[in-house]
């Protein structure tokens, strides 16, 4: 079975084509704002300008014809409504013209499923960290349950916001990571963990306020040490409470080597195994949509062309029929 997936929840537009065993192609086009953060309308305009040619590229790169594709999947949500609609529209059109089934996929679940597939992890606790999402999830009773999450913004957005205050171009996260390597002095910043939930906006504001008196390197360093310690602590607590002994890291912020390092150390001390997919599958990508859509279809799910996008689609709102 050949599955084509379209990812467009935020700034990255990505097409992935897979079969049961392997990735056949992946083509991405990232929207990069000139200044400031992501403007939804501009991002969606960028996506709609590029989507047709990107789909064509992906199909050609896989040495396929359009009619070789068996199912069409798209990121139904959560995400920016305008961006999601670009993916949905293109998917509907493809599905109708090729007369093939259409599947709306939950973006967070896609990260988890492709993470499990690529890393070989069977039943992990999941730390999912991206721009807008920061959640600790686990599979229970046919759903991915949220054990803990951000009470305000995602860690990626927090890092990007700090980056903007430092006049770094978007995305700020990787640049903060680079600066942090040169930092060494731990500035006292608010460490906010409430049970299994956490909060980053106070931390960002506090870090921004220190820009007048501290170096960018030390602020970046302190921001990472504080924020990542918070995430690691909550993840460890969730692991203790849920009796799981595998951890899967996914989401774009999973590319951060300090975060990976912290989680690895925590897992080693705790006695659990650490799993992470390949870097190209960590951030938002079309392969995860194609892969998850295929799993959904094979477990009996497909959607009418009238299917709507869901900007606030939570992972615990979808049924996971392909797991025990």
């Amino acid at each position, binding site marked *: 079975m050949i599955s084509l997936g379209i990812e467009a929840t935020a700034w990255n537009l990505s097409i992935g084509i897979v079969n049961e065993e392997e990735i056949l192609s992946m083509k991405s086009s990232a929207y990069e704002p000139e200044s400031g953060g992501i403007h939804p309308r501009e991002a969606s305009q960028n996506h709609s300008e590029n989507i047709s040619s990107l789909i064509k590229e992906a199909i050609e790169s896989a040495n396929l014809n359009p009619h070789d594709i068996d199912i069409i999947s798209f990121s139904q949500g959560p995400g920016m409504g305008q961006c999601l609609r670009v993916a949905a529209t293109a998917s509907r059109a493809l599905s109708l013209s090729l007369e093939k089934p259409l599947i709306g996929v939950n973006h967070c679940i896609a990260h988890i499923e492709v993470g499990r597939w690529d890393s070989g992890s069977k039943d992990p606790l999941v730390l999912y960290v991206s721009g807008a999402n920061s959640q600790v999830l686990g599979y229970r009773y046919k759903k991915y349950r949220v054990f803990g999450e951000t009470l305000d913004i995602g860690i990626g957005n927090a890092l990007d916001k700090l980056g903007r205050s430092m006049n770094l171009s978007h995305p700020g996260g990787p640049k903060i990571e680079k600066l942090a390597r040169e930092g060494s002095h*731990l500035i006292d910043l608010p460490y906010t963990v409430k*049970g299994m939930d956490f909060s980053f906006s106070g931390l960002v504001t506090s870090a921004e306020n220190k820009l007048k008196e501290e170096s960018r390197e030390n602020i970046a360093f302190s921001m990472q040490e504080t924020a990542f310690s918070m995430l690691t602590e909550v993840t460890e607590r969730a692991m203790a409470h*849920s009796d799981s002994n595998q951890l899967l890291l996914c989401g774009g912020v999973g590319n951060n080597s300090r975060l990976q390092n912290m989680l690895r150390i925590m897992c080693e001390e705790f006695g659990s195994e650490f799993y992470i997919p390949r870097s190209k599958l960590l951030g938002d990508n079309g392969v995860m949509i194609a892969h998850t859509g295929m799993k959904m279809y094979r477990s009996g799910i497909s959607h009418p062309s009238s299917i709507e996008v869901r900007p*606030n689609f939570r992972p615990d709102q979808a049924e996971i029929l392909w797991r025990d």
Partner: protein
Amino acid sequence: MDIERSTFSSINSGPKLMDRGAEAKIYLKNNKILKLRISKSYRLNELDRRIRRHRTKKEAKIISDSRKKGVPTPIVLDLGDFYILLEYINGKKIKDDFENLSFDKYVQIGQNIGKLHSAGIVHGDLTTSNMILFNGKIYLIDFGLAEYDMHVESRGVDLHVLFQDIKSYHNKEEVIKHIKKGYSEAFEGSNKVFKRVSDISKRGRYN
């Protein structure tokens, strides 16, 4: 470890490791509990010591203050930089048999939290692992993340964390109404908090 040895030095055989949570090791000897906050290698030593010292001191004070306001908690017997010595509550964690409690126990859970919030304190980590049933009474333990906080947001998060725990780990949403009943009996400001809990659970990205 020296702290453990000096505390139990008068005893012939060593203390028994009762529990090793994510946060601390719990030792038991002669009906006393030693809660020792574990050092974590994943975080900077400076941050690690700061967090542990701060939480130990605060936890002891909050346990005492909660107890004074009628919340069933263990008694604090002694305090160090990274450890607290407590009375031992010889019961069972609610987590182990949550689905089968009698309904009045769920109400009691709500009453405990209501009294706590009336005292201007939020627990900070309300899960079924932090409640112990002993002689028909439910005790609250592990106040390491507790705060003196009267904001409806914090109280809402307190309840939200527990309700999420019940929904996701225990899959028993229907007992929440009993907990809310007990909570509103013990705390006058309950309606505002319930409304906030509803808001918090709807919050997500892209609002």
